[in-house]
């Protein structure tokens, strides 16, 4: 089944009695879907490609940004602005031409998730938000696929193999057995908001790749019914035992029909006030600036976030501090609230309207990214 070049390439695996030809054949026959080609996805993809997985699907709708390069080591300066899924496939094909790599530059949602996930044997979760994480978990449960879960926060990581059915046909816990309810929207920061140690996702994503290989080859003990916690500051690894909790998974969609009806953004509180937030487009903002209209701009990104645009700076209060600094925000003038992409600013408006009675706030649709796009169009 392997040609001479493959035998040479995989020789160090073939030498291991636990893997050998039979194990390497299982690896070649397997199909793995990596969701998110970011911090966790990059190292996982690089190892899974190197060891010769038969087919790897790469889901990511995002483009490479300069701030990714500190930890997403698959990408280089020339790749900035390109789609992650395409660049990843290009780089990985050079790394191992024997692997079939499928770019899926799309946003996973409940309309396309089952179709995509059903085509793979193992799903590796490298997502950076709760809505997608619950969506992927629920799809894996409906399709009975093992989910190699990883997530990170600043210096710490979590890893587990979820929804894994062992040799005795017993299925382990799912993400909903860990966290039946998502955290309140905005209560937990992602890497763009909180920052993250460059090597942290390298460690966690590589652990996910290791679990994936173990599931395929059937060697060792799978990290099912266990949650691994890693802390880079103390170099402490610990394993916490977790149980499947069928009662807690009751709220999950049970079949395709129920899955299609789920609104994961709503479930995770991302758009609870859908449509009620007033908003303005970047074009409208441009006009207001040109006409020197009297309004205030509120940037709710973190202080170090780039780009900082002089034209757009009036007041900066990170989302996490908005509730404590409402006295700085005008209640009389029109206030245009913005962030990188328009999600955090929307959340800030919800907090300010619901808890502090503001009614003069407008969300900048698409945020700074949309503004940058408008500026670059103008240059062209």
């Amino acid at each position, binding site marked *: 089944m392997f040609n001479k070049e493959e035998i040479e390439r995989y020789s160090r695996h073939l030498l291991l009695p636990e893997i050998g030809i039979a194990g390497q054949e299982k690896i070649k026959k397997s199909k793995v879907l990596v969701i998110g080609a970011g911090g966790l996805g990059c190292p996982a993809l690089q190892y899974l490609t190197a060891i010769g997985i038969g087919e790897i699907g790469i889901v990511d709708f995002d483009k490479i940004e300069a701030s990714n390069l500190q930890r997403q080591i698959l990408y280089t300066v020339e790749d900035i602005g390109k789609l992650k899924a395409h660049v990843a496939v290009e780089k990985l094909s050079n790394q191992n031409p024997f692997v079939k790599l499928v770019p899926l530059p799309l946003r996973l949602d409940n309309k396309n998730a089952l179709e995509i996930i059903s085509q793979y044997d193992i799903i590796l979760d490298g997502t950076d938000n709760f809505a997608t994480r619950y969506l992927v978990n629920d799809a894996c449960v409906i399709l009975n696929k093992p989910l190699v879960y990883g*997530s990170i926060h600043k210096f710490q990581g979590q890893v587990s193999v979820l929804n894994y059915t062992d040799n005795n046909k017993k299925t382990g816990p799912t993400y909903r057995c860990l966290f039946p309810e998502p955290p309140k929207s905005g209560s*937990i920061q992602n890497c763009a908001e909180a920052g993250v140690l460059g090597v942290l996702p390298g460690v966690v994503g590589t652990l996910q790749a290791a679990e994936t290989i173990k599931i395929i080859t059937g060697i060792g003990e799978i990290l099912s019914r266990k949650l691994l916690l890693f802390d880079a500051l103390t170099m402490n690894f610990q394993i916490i035992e977790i149980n499947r909790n069928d009662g807690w998974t009751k709220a999950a969609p049970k079949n395709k029909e129920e899955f299609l009806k789920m609104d994961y953004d709503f479930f995770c509180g991302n758009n609870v006030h859908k449509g009620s937030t007033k908003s303005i487009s970047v074009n409208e903002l441009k006009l207001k600036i040109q006409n020197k209209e009297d309004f205030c701009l509120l940037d709710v990104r973190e202080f170090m976030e780039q780009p900082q645009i002089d034209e757009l700076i009036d007041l900066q209060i990170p989302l996490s501090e908005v509730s404590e600094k409402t006295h700085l925000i005008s209640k009389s003038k029109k206030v245009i609230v913005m962030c990188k992409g328009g999600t955090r600013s929307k959340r800030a408006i919800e907090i300010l309207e619901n808890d502090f009675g503001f009614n003069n706030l407008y969300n900048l649709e698409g945020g700074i990214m949309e503004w940058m796009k408008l500026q670059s169009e103008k240059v062209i």
Partner: protein
Amino acid sequence: MNIKVKLFGSLVDKTGKSELPVSGCPDTDSLKKTVLTQYPQLKDCVFLISVNKHIVKDNHKLEEGNDIALLPPFAGG
């Protein structure tokens, strides 16, 4: 009875502490109540409670020397 509670992830950000000394809590329900009274900023937080490296869902009796951790979900990837 004195117990040390280890905090993880966003709970460290919100309290500025990675470990909390807690006393006079006979079980996990009262522990949770005490922690939330001391740190009301955690009241909206979702977290798991682990006792001696096992996640406990229902109220669980605590003993001196128990290894306790509060584990929130992480968002990043």
